[in-house]
């Protein structure tokens, strides 16, 4: 229920954004954040971006996800 995933903003239209994670594109609502820009990494929960992540923070989470992916052999 608390699941949130990092994703990168690729396009912004008003308060909505297209965000991408590992090739998957989703919609996210940006109204809970101020000043988010294209290229920013954000943490997305149930369709809402809840926090900005630095590239390094996002990278760490992605590496952990990829490591599990390797071990488990299942798609994220």
């Amino acid at each position, binding site marked *: *229920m*608390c699941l949130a995933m990092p994703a990168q903003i690729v396009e912004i239209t008003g308060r909505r954004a297209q965000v991408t994670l590992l090739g998957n594109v989703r919609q996210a609502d940006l109204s*809970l954040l101020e000043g988010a820009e294209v290229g920013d990494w954000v943490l997305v*929960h149930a*369709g*809402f971006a809840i926090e900005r992540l630095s590239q390094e923070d996002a990278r760490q*989470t992605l590496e952990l*996800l990829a490591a599990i992916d390797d071990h488990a052999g299942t798609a994220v």
Partner: protein
Amino acid sequence: MIARPIRIMEVCGTHTHAIGRSGLRSLMPPNIELVSGPGCPVCVTSQSDIERILILARRPGLTLCTFGDMVRVPGLTSSLERERSAGADIRVVYSAMEALELAGREDGREVVFLAVGFETTSPGVASLILQADHQGVANLSFFISHKLIVPAMEAVLQGGSRIDGFLAPGHVSVIIGPEAYEGLAIRYSVPCVVTGFEPADVLEAIVMLLDCIVEGRPGSFVQYARAVKPGGNRRAWEMLTRVFDITDAEWRGLGVIPRSGLTLKPAFTRFDAAERYPLPEMPSVQPPGCRCGDVLRGLIHPPECPLFRQECTPRNPVGPCMVSSEGSCAARYTYG
């Protein structure tokens, strides 16, 4: 080196699931016990709310939008899944946004969004209600069952469970900030560590907690620094307080906890499904033998419930702890 038994509680369904899935429990030394608390918002939805949700679902002309893990929660005689088979229009959504979009597309139908979740989820719902209000949407309302986690942590401590430390929820803390646990930590001398969701995060947080316990350092600390900032997300919290008031709420297994739930402010009453539709007050009735309440308080582990793996399985859940994949019992059943 600590010899005495240490009980660490997590209060986040995603932590329950992560710990179960990674087999962390089996890696712990024998004196460290990982206990699951009331961290699954689906699991702590009151029986009374569940019955009222089922009444809503049965209304002709009404479309109920819900997160997936509510669908199989058993009421006394039915569930959303059963109602769907009987013809109710129930749509599983990933985001509350989809309910707003649906209301716009299907203006002949009354749309209700089932608003369940802790502080990670409720600001998004608040934002959505503001958007619906701004757009003058007339066919959308919300059954509000949102709850707040810190009052539940306090209720667990007051209820006699011996807890030596908390793994605090990572994404709730993105919103409320790590300071939210400080008062509790100091008052009850129980350190709290805000924890991420990967096994490495949980292990690191357990080490941090043990250090605090050994050194007698109650307080709130952050392991999940890559997402959790001091002060949390103020904008999200302000949006939440613009739309919702804090109220007393009934938690399955824990009873009524003061100031632990959300209710719509009077300005948004027309978005309140409980005001819009006649919904009787329903008493909460626990199914006989079900010990979900004790499991949620961390008083017993799932295998100590007499129904565990007998009458109560993920396929045939008796209580919500078994239904949601984040429930303690479901996680224990699946991962051992």
